[in-house]
């Protein structure tokens, strides 16, 4: 048996005794080689002693005035106390309850867990119970503008890594008791806090139960990011499409809660999951609702065009230049042909080269450290630029196609959905290269069938377009005036 397992077993089997030294030793064994643990011992009368145990950095030791704590103990237990009674406990607790949340635990294992998540444990001679003061004080960064979802008009606050801060960001937008929060813990080693939040009476009861059930089922060693949770609770793991909404924006989460969705907040990540996720919801931004509705509608239509072109533009180019020249207007055909004259590759290879180069550049731009980043844009401008044409490797019409595809894929409000379409572009190009427009049609049909088949927590992925709920289309295909959207739609 490994030593760590031994320790764990000892911890789970140990019951607290009335002897401080024994308890203290047990804590020391469990926290063996944990350099961040702090012990302090003190005496509250001549014969009897006590001890504090806290984890540095997790529990904020300055949050409780140690002297105050000692005084509280001393004044509640005057004289030599032989047997500690319920009265004593109540007295201590009432003296401390104004400084922080306090509780008593008679289970050793629970006390250890509480210390690990930031409690100050107070051991007292003669007590078989441990006083736990919640002094959780994790280092966090300040609330900043979300890096991945910027807006022109709209609130600038974004989630950060601390779950309670994130919850407060939601709470301050919904001052109602209907907003419910249920806490879960998942991850055998990480013990990550997960909060499920929804608006009671607006979110469907069946959806809430389903989400709770799936989150409760999670069995994993550690959860480092909400992506773990997403993958563990989604309906179809064999699909390129994201089936939940992931966002850094509190206003987006609240907007979705108002539509009857359920949000899952995971500790240590600014990315909050909203379920069920549908295709059209992934194509919306909160700003659609802040800007004037004419403009917002136009931008939504622009986004639909972007979706189609990011998927189809390169493959249409391949299909038309390889199989269906006759469809290209004559003058355009001549100019395409003349610029393709010097290019040695077939259209498919040419397009594949450029698309792969472009995807590579994008990926490099994300990973590179800031100071080097400029280098990428310079190289990028050369590779996907006039130099490539001058070198006779690609034709200039293709360059325009690749750039337009790039622009289109930047228009996706959801990065995850954009990734799916970027990926699907490549099979689409293969289909176009082998079967022309017919191949594109067949692959599009296949994709459509797949998307229509997808469900997220019982909600069809393509709803409300299909299955059709005509009343809700006014907030999908365009954005109607708020006068007409007042009633929040229900997810079902």
């Amino acid at each position, binding site marked *: 048996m490994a030593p760590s397992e031994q320790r764990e077993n000892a911890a789970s089997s140990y019951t607290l005794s009335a002897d401080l030294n024994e308890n203290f030793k047990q804590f020391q064994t469990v926290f063996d080689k944990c350099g961040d643990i702090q012990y302090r011992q003190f005496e509250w009368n001549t014969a009897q002693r006590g001890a504090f145990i806290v984890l540095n950095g997790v529990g904020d030791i300055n949050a409780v005035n140690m002297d105050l704590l000692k005084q509280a103990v001393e004044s509640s237990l005057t004289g030599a106390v032989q047997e500690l009674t319920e009265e004593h406990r109540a007295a201590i607790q009432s003296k401390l309850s104004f400084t922080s949340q306090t509780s008593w635990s008679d289970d050793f294992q629970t006390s250890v867990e509480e210390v690990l998540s930031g409690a100050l444990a107070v051991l007292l001679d003669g007590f078989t119970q441990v006083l736990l003061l919640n002094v959780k004080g994790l280092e966090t960064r300040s609330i900043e503008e979300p890096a991945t979802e910027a807006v022109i008009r709209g609130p600038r606050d974004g989630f950060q890594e601390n779950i309670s801060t994130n919850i407060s960001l939601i709470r301050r937008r919904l001052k109602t008791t209907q907003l419910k929060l249920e806490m879960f813990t998942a991850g055998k080693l990480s013990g990550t806090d997960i909060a499920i939040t929804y608006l009671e009476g607006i979110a469907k009861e069946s959806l809430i139960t389903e989400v709770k059930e799936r989150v409760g089922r999670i069995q994993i060693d550690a959860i480092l990011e909400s992506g773990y949770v997403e993958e563990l609770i989604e309906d179809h793991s064999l699909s390129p499409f994201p089936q939940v909404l992931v966002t850094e924006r509190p206003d987006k989460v609240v907007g979705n809660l108002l539509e009857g969705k359920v949000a899952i907040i995971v500790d240590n990540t600014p990315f909050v999951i909203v379920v069920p996720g549908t295709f059209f919801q992934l194509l919306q931004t909160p700003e659609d609702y802040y800007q004037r509705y004419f403009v917002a509608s136009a931008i939504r239509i622009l986004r639909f065009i972007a979706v189609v072109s990011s998927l189809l533009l390169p493959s249409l180019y391949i299909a038309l230049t390889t199989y269906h020249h*006759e469809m290209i207007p004559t003058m355009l055909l001549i100019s395409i042909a003349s610029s393709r004259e010097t290019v040695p590759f077939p259209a498919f290879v040419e397009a594949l080269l450029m698309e792969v180069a472009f995807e590579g550049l994008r990926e490099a731009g994300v990973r590179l450290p800031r100071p080097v980043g400029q280098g990428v844009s310079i190289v990028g401008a050369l590779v996907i630029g006039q130099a490539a044409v001058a070198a006779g490797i690609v034709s200039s019409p293709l360059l325009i196609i690749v750039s337009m595809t790039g622009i289109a894929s930047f228009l996706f409000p959801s990065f995850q959905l954009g990734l799916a379409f970027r990926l699907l572009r490549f099979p689409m190009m293969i289909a176009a290269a*082998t079967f022309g427009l*017919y*191949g594109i*049609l067949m692959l599009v049909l296949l994709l459509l069938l797949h998307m229509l088949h997808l469900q997220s927590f019982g909600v069809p992925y393509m709803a409300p*377009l*299909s*299955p*059709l709920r005509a009343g809700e289309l006014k907030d999908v295909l365009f954005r109607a005036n708020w006068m007409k959207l007042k009633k929040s739609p229900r997810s079902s």
Partner: protein
Amino acid sequence: MDTISRHQLLAISIIYQIGTTIIFGFASGAGRDSWLAVLISTVLGTAIIMVYVSVTHLNPGLTYIECYPKQFGKWLGTPIAWLHPLLFLYIAGRIVADINNLVPSTILPGTPSWAILAIFIIVIGYALFLGLKVMGRLAEIILPLLGLIYVVEVVLILSSGVIDLDNLFPLLDKGWNRVWKVVWPLGIIQSYGESLALAMIWTSVKPKGRVGRTMILSTLLAGSFIAYTDAMAVSVFGEEIFKRATYPMYALIQAINVADFITQLDATGVLYFCFMAFLKTYIYLFAAIRSIQKLTYAQSNRSFIMPVTVIAFVLGLTMAPNVIVHITVVEKIVPYSPIYLSLMIFIPMVLMAVSWLRRKQV
């Protein structure tokens, strides 16, 4: 459960009934009176469809196929019922053969036809595995899109300046004779009699009821669409070319020419056709699979999907050596065959009468 809504049924039916006429034209034998022939066929076709509807109405809860054993008894009913999946498979094979003839000869001249059919069949097989629900949703999404493309097409044709309304007159100058000739039996069987396969999906409509009204609506919409397109084709080409063209509607798309910029849209026409053929083949194969499932009392239809799609693939690949044979068979031989006429028109009428009488007795 694998159910569809009424709206989805409407979308499926409209696409199904317009179907391949979008390329092959409809009733072109009647020349400039073809649109009139279409309208008459539509009215008679609606009557035929009402027969199917009332059969399923008189035998609630049963699919169309199951009515035969129930009403005609095991010995007479079961063999008749078994003819249906065979018929559906045959027609599905015909449509696959349509693809086999049209696609390689128009947009993909160098590609082997088995490859073209293979991916067609694979997509259909996938759709069959996903079930009717997904197909209903697909139809629901595609129908408005097709409508939009059609409107664009009409606008483009109008702006191409090729329409000559004089081509439509004089009306009925050669008498009613040639109109009746295309109406019976081809006009009634094509699109409307073929809606027999749709009868197999009516039991999947939820909420129940008003299937008849939905079907009438879809038939009238599809009929008027075909009539309008026919009239447009005649006014563009004139009677003679229209009658002789193999693919009159395809030619219609080719006629588009706006300012010498938007021209040669034939490939889009073929894509149109491929989608229509896709949905039609799907419905036929679905009907065939469900019939076999009901007749063999199988729990699930999954195990039939593979064999049935493979059969359709082989049928489509081998059915017709060339376009001429294919079209001649489709237009001159099949509609007059006793199996077609009796399964689509006469036996359903008898079935309806028997069902009605037996219900009255009870």
